[in-house]
């Protein structure tokens, strides 16, 4: 009798640990991070006992974590690189599947006191190559330009490097910060600063300029007229089992609540409703 009770206790514990300890590990982009956080918060309220961790370490780290099996979902603000990441994933038996959950525009931001309203892509490139050193050369005040970039493991950096720099090297004097919030803090507190952030990080404290004549807005980003618009991804290993928590998570952006959250974080939902 006593032994049976013991077995029952073990069984209850085992079932409890299976049901209660379901965890979802999410890692990657600091741009997509806020969306993943918002989704995670919502999932925790509708599915108590579910544990979700969201690490914001950069798209490259997300890809590496998915390949190494250290996360269930990789958040990425760029696609996986074919020659490095995809190849390595396949070699390790991981099949990366992309779920596009929204659109973002890389916004070129300056200090709100800066009178500059518009920049051309070659002007921005010249700034980051150290050829333009003062705002005076662009018709602004006589203050030195402090150009700030993201670190090289950022997906936003990759997008900027490809679409604005045309893969050319930046000047050595460019400052680097390791996350969107840091970029926001630096630009909002430095009069001569120029930087770039995901659309969700533009607010009253930093000013997004028109890029090649196009203002970063919801419709210009969605239809691709804004030159620096890009899709945001969740990557999973294979298509998740239908009905599983991972499946619900990566399709959540299609629901009304999901679209609302994407939009609340300052990004553009992909569905037009």
């Amino acid at each position, binding site marked *: 009798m006593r032994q049976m009770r013991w077995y029952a206790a073990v069984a209850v514990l085992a079932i409890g640990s299976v049901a209660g300890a379901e965890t979802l590990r999410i890692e990657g982009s600091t741009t997509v991070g806020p969306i993943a956080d918002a989704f995670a918060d919502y999932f925790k309220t509708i599915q108590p006992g579910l544990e979700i961790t969201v690490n914001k*370490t*950069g798209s*490259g*780290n997300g890809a*590496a974590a998915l390949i190494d099996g250290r996360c269930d979902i990789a958040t990425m603000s760029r696609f996986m690189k074919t020659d*490095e990441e995809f190849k*390595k994933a396949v070699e390790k038996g991981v099949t990366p599947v992309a779920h596009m959950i929204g659109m973002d525009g890389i916004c070129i931001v300056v200090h709100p006191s800066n009178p500059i309203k518009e920049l051309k892509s070659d002007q921005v490139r010249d700034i980051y190559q150290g050829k333009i050193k003062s705002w005076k050369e662009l018709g602004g005040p006589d*203050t*030195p330009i*402090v150009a700030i970039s993201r*670190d*090289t*493991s950022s997906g936003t950096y990759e997008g900027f*490097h490809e679409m604005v720099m045309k*893969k050319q*090297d930046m000047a*050595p*004097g*460019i*400052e*680097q*910060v*390791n996350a969107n919030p*840091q970029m926001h*803090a*630096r630009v909002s*507190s*430095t*009069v*001569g*600063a120029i930087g770039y952030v995901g659309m969700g990080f533009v607010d009253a404290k930093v000013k997004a300029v028109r890029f090649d004549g196009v203002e970063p807005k919801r419709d210009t980003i969605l239809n691709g007229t804004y030159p620096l618009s890009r899709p945001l991804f969740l990557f999973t290993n294979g298509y998740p089992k239908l009905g599983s928590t991972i499946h619900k998570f990566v399709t959540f952006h299609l629901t009304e609540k999901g679209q609302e959250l994407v939009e609340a974080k300052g990004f553009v939902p992909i569905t037009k409703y």
Partner: protein
Amino acid sequence: MTTHKDSFIALPAPAADRIYRPLALTPGEDLKGYILAKAGHAVLFAITCTSVLSVLLIFFFVIREAVPFVRDYSLAQFLTRSDWYPEAGAARFGALAVIVGSAYVTLAALVFAVPVGILAAVFLSDVVDFRVRAWVKPMIEILAAIPSVAYGFFAVRVLAPWMQTHWGFPTGTNALNSSIVLAVMAVPTIISVAEDSISALGPELREAAYSLGSTRMETTFKVVIPAAHSGIIAAVVLGMMRAIGETMVVWMASGNANQIPSPWWDLSQSIRTMTATVAGEMGETAKGSLHYGALFTVGVLLLIVTFTLNLVSEVLLARAKKALGKA
């Protein structure tokens, strides 16, 4: 029982109601004690070895990962050029700028921290009332316990904007900012070690100096500080290690621009250090790639520097102890 009666040593009669422990041990007990002592010794030795072993393993693994890079990439270019473009089509790894950057912030931090640290140590050991010292020294040591990310946060959010508005620097995250914060972090170490070695000198030296007519100033600067010089230098070296190995603060406060300031004395420019480069780029590199190897080679350089500094401080502290023994 019989063994006790037969033994040569006179023993009190064993009482039936309590456990009796004889002075003369049976061979079994003797062996058991011997084994226990040896086993205890071995366990403690193994525990001590884990830390020694981990140091050796760190050396082994860091060097092992760096070897392919040193073999495949020119070490001369790594050490003499400062174009660090790991993401470019033809990746280049010139680490000179980050090596110089580390040297800059470390030396500048020492320029701020050493005078403050030594003077504070002298003040605490020779000048101030013992009751004040009992309060102040633990407070200073708390400074060493503040996590570095808190310092970094202060550097970015408070010090950087302050420098921009009050000193007119174009950018507040620069070499000066990180040096100042590193100095604040190194000061407690310097004060603590220097104060220990100064107060360990004992009253004899000071009394001898006073009896020869020296003032307190002369005693302090001409007798006490020279006598404690080994300990003070060791304190400085330990503070230097704290500064050169620090990662979070320089990653947040230095601006991370891969350049050597020009003109060379202009600390208001952004720089990047070895530690920040490794911390910032390690996550994205593919294991075994050239970039990965380059970061480990930077790590080996850092290890060599800190190892040398550590050795120097050990030798100096040992010398300080020996000199004290003679006196």
